[in-house]
């Protein structure tokens, strides 16, 4: 009897906490999303209706920002994967005794404030930085091309900022691969590419799935990079939600947008996990 109840006792405080501060707020968000403004009432006066059209309105009005969020997040995730995979591979197999030190160095930049690093990129890529003048000298970009306040800068900033969420899970799963399986593949006359495609990559799939999810999810909801590195035409759905809450004070629309974002991400994540075939994620 005691044996059966132990796990539940262990779960109780944490899950009670998550229920009150995660589940209840989400339910409340759903409620708010169908409210309507009281006609002739105060600015902040809303009444509980079941106006599902809020969703339609919110989506139609902001579908451009929705699409942009998912496209930017997707590009940033793919870039982060392309940058991180060789890095994680090199750390796991080629770093030898320097493995731990290099791993620390990969994480270390992310202890400097996320916002300051983003502002730093803005300065580095800006007119006074060293990147733009040197690219102009070499004729790679024309005189009137800028790098900041562009979609390029936003995607680049997201790629950089969410990189450790990609590199760490990748490293964890590549590091777990027994090097003898790679040797076995070579013994069976597979070349480097075949070994990678048929042995290394499949064995590192849990890391790829975890890393892409941990990068894509925060990237899709981010608004800091778009705010600091972008322009009014690179606004993402996060920017819209933020301004609906704090500037326009339109809670139902903001809630409907948040809920749509959450649902869209959950559906994508579920489909992706099904497709990638990894159930063991957490």
């Amino acid at each position, binding site marked *: 009897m005691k044996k*059966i109840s132990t*796990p*539940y006792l*262990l779960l109780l*405080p*944490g*899950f009670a*906490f*998550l229920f009150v*501060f*995660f589940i209840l*707020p989400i339910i409340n*968000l759903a409620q*708010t999303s169908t409210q309507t403004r009281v006609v002739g009432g105060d600015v902040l006066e809303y009444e509980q209706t079941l106006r599902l059209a809020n969703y339609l309105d919110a989506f139609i009005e902001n579908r451009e920002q929705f699409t942009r969020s998912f496209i930017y997040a997707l590009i940033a995730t793919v870039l982060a994967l392309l*940058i991180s995979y*060789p*890095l994680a591979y*090199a750390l796991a197999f*080629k770093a030898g005794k320097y493995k*731990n*030190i*290099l791993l*620390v*160095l990969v*994480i*270390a*930049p*992310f*202890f*400097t*404030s*996320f*916002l*300051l*690093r*983003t502002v*730093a*990129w803005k*300065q580095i890529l800006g007119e006074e930085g060293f990147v733009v003048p040197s690219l102009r000298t070499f004729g790679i970009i024309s005189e009137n091309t800028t790098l900041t306040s562009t979609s390029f800068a936003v995607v680049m900033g997201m790629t950089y900022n969410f*990189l450790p969420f990609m590199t760490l899970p990748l490293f964890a799963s590549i590091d777990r691969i027994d090097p003898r399986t790679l040797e076995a593949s070579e013994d069976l006359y597979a070349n*480097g590419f075949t070994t990678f495609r048929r042995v290394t990559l499949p064995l590192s799939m849990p890391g790829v799935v975890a890393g892409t999810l*941990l990068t894509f*999810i925060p990237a*899709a*909801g*981010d*608004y*800091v990079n778009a705010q*600091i590195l972008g322009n009014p035409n690179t606004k993402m759905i*996060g920017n819209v939600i*933020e301004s609906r*809450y704090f500037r326009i004070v339109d*809670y139902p629309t903001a*809630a409907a947008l*948040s*809920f749509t*974002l*959450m649902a869209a*991400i959950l559906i994508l994540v579920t489909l992706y996990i099904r497709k990638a075939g990894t159930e063991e994620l*957490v």
Partner: protein
Amino acid sequence: MSVKQKDASIPTLPLGVVISRWIGRNLIRIYMVFAFTYLFIPVAYTFAFSFNDSGKSNLIWKGFTFDNWTNPCGAPQVCSALGNSIKIGLLATIFSTILGTMIAFAIGRYAYKGRSASNLLIFLPMATPEIVLGASLLSLLLVFQISPGFWPTVLAHVVFCVSFVVVTVKARIASLDPKLEQAAMDLYANEFQTFRRVTLPLVAPGIAAAALLAFSLSFDDFIITNFNSGTVTTFPKFVYVSAARGIPAQANVIASTMFFLALALVIIGQVVSRKRKVS
């Protein structure tokens, strides 16, 4: 005859292998140099500009000075923001580490009804974008007419830290050798003694790593904080708000200090764990 054949084959096949391996090896080195340069450019920039004699707006290099380092609280609000971030970070770390470790033991150690449902409940906060977590808690606060501030921020941070703690500690529990606990039981340790003397010390590095992760997530969080902190200013919020009119160089001093502190802490942790492994 056979020796001669071997000699003839050396310059063709092995040379190709040697060259390709040489290129392969150096490609990785070249790649690592590029990757680390990319990772460290903004850090180097932040560090360099902490020595800028810039006045209020730290945008253009105006000259070298140690003033920002000798007077890190020189800019208004910067140190009170830092203090808030540390307080919130520590509280969120303590709560999330305790709650998360308990959940990790339940999921990692017991087979019980509803185990997959509890896995899902842990995964959901991680699959929810920060802005939704922040916005939903804010809308609950509005309903109960609780004003955003210090404690709502702490609670919001605990929500997203708990899942990361569970995942980290669970991974450590899963890698434990069950034989060690069985051995303790064989030596007449009761369940509690086994837990306290064997299981807990073995899981401790995982708990420490989880706590460190929770603190760094909380300390660096901006989006959820922005939604739930009201008038309380944390360090990331301070940077965000002052970005428009210029960030004082003192912020760079603080960020650089955090960087070196974290680096030192992680390296000390590595050395300690290696010593333990040896002994």
